[in-house]
């Protein structure tokens, strides 16, 4: 009995285009509640596969026959097991999601954000499964990554396809919610790895300190990547202004929310910095800059082309986190009622510092679950 499969590219396409899908998630209820494939027009049924070992009778009447059904599990084995039984029961609209949530978590959807001067290009890599955003600036055979996530080869191969060599790998800060791919990219390509020095005090490997005002040029057409010290999420957090038009805000400012300062347990100390960055430093910048953050929270933030980004001027109008006049209220907002810490955030930080070097499988597990680093 062969079961039709659906790959995560297809699911990504349906998310971006707001297409229809019925998701039958056969993982544990806890896992499903914590984290699932999110789509505007998706419907869900969650029944663990071990309730279906005897047969699919418990769900037979709940699975639709007139639309595509994607069965998803952790890695793709149990979804195939359940899909097979559905096919045997006569369903011909059922697909098993290849690689399951593991593959979904690792899928990166490259979206071209802009053409830069002299043939340069700017790409955003949307990690739909976790809400992470990474960037690549390409210019004249050279490329730079910003906040590249763990799947380093995706960036290396993408640059290669574009005929470019990665020469710089920047991180806006020491990440606590996902494993950075910056170090691996640097090791594999010879690129320079940059990190703000205040976030790098415990770093166990070579890096170049990213100081405020640093201006790195990519390719001979000299697309400028300017560093702007903007602390608050971490003490070192630094933003980039690319080609005088794009503001990579890291985890400081998102489209519909702002960063939170507590990941290293220093919420109270960093609130002042966060306030200063959002209400002063960023305010001095041009309203016309397009803000390109390192995360997004819900699919509502996706633009029509699947990218995430908005003009700074519009954010100052619409983003609640930028419009809290009262300092005390702001302090309360970013220090109280915070969402739970990301899974394994301490281990993730230590991995990004080079203090521990878990196997790939272990790294995958550390990243399981949703992203939780912004406050509304």
């Amino acid at each position, binding site marked *: 009995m062969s079961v039709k499969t659906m790959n995560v590219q297809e699911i990504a396409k349906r998310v971006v285009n707001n297409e229809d899908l019925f998701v039958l998630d056969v993982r544990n209820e806890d896992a499903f509640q914590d984290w699932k494939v999110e789509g505007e027009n998706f419907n869900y049924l969650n029944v663990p596969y*071990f309730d279906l*070992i005897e047969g699919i009778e418990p769900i037979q009447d709940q699975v639709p026959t007139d639309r595509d059904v994607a069965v998803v599990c*952790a890695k793709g084995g149990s979804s195939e097991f359940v899909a097979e039984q559905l096919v045997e029961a006569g369903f011909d609209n059922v697909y098993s999601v290849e690689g399951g949530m593991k593959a979904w978590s690792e899928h990166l959807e490259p979206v071209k954000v802009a053409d830069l001067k002299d043939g340069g290009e700017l790409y955003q890599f949307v990690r739909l499964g976790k809400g992470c955003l990474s960037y690549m600036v390409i210019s004249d055979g050279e490329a730079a990554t910003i906040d590249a996530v763990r799947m380093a080869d995706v960036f290396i191969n993408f640059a290669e396809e574009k005929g470019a060599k990665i020469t710089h790998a920047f991180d806006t800060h020491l990440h606590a919610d996902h494993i950075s791919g910056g170090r691996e990219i640097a090791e594999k390509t010879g690129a320079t790895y940059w990190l703000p020095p205040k976030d790098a005090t415990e770093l166990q490997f070579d890096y170049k300190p990213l100081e405020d005002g640093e201006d790195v040029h990519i390719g001979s057409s000299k697309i400028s990547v300017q560093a702007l010290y903007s602390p608050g999420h971490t003490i070192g957090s630094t933003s980039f202004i690319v080609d005088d038009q794009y503001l990579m805000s890291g985890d400081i400012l998102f489209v519909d929310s702002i960063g939170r300062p507590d990941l290293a347990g220093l919420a109270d100390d960093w609130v002042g910095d966060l306030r200063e960055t959002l209400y002063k430093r960023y305010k001095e910048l041009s309203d016309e800059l397009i803000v390109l953050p390192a995360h997004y929270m819900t699919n509502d933030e996706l633009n029509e082309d699947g990218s995430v980004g908005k003009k700074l001027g519009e954010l100052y109008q619409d983003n609640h986190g930028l419009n809290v006049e009262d300092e005390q209220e702001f302090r309360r907002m970013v220090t109280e009622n915070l969402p739970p810490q990301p899974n394994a955030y301490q281990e993730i930080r230590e991995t990004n510092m080079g203090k521990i070097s878990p196997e790939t499988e272990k790294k995958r597990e550390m990243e399981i679950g949703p992203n939780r680093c912004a406050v509304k």
Partner: protein
Amino acid sequence: MTDIKADHVLDAKGLACPMPIVKTRKEIENIEGGKVLLVEATDQGSKADLKAWAERSGHQYLGTVEEDDVLRHYVRKASEGETEEDVSFDQKVNNDELKQKLDSDQVTVLDVRESAEYAFGHIPNAISIPFGELEDRVSELNQDDEIYVVCRTGNRSDMAAKLLSEKGFENVYNVVPGMSEWDGDVNSQ
């Protein structure tokens, strides 16, 4: 923790989800109620899944020991009647009464659950003699001691208390319900 006793072993190493649970479900059918099955698996997801599956199907998930990338899951098969309130031995105390005794007196706690159940959590200093072995090992206990017999729900300990009483033990008490609702100190080994 490496020598926790199991009555049956299922090798599910190298198998990916869903096979560890599918095989466990099949294997447990061949096992007598109340016996302990050890499932050895390498799939990390098997832990949460096995626990959730056991809870749904009424079996007792005891715990998991991870060693050299092998997850050793211990499950005790549900046994008929164990959850029923069927305790007839007349000398009995509740959990709180036992807790007070532990604070004050020098008393003996006899844990008659399977050794794997004991290994994953027991009252400090409790003596472990599974009910099935009690008749042969009764000489290990002192007839003059005040003995509190504990199991998971009060059922096996009821039978054990009766057995000890028949053997001439007079200061024997059944602890009801026992470990299922024990909120005092616990050791594991």
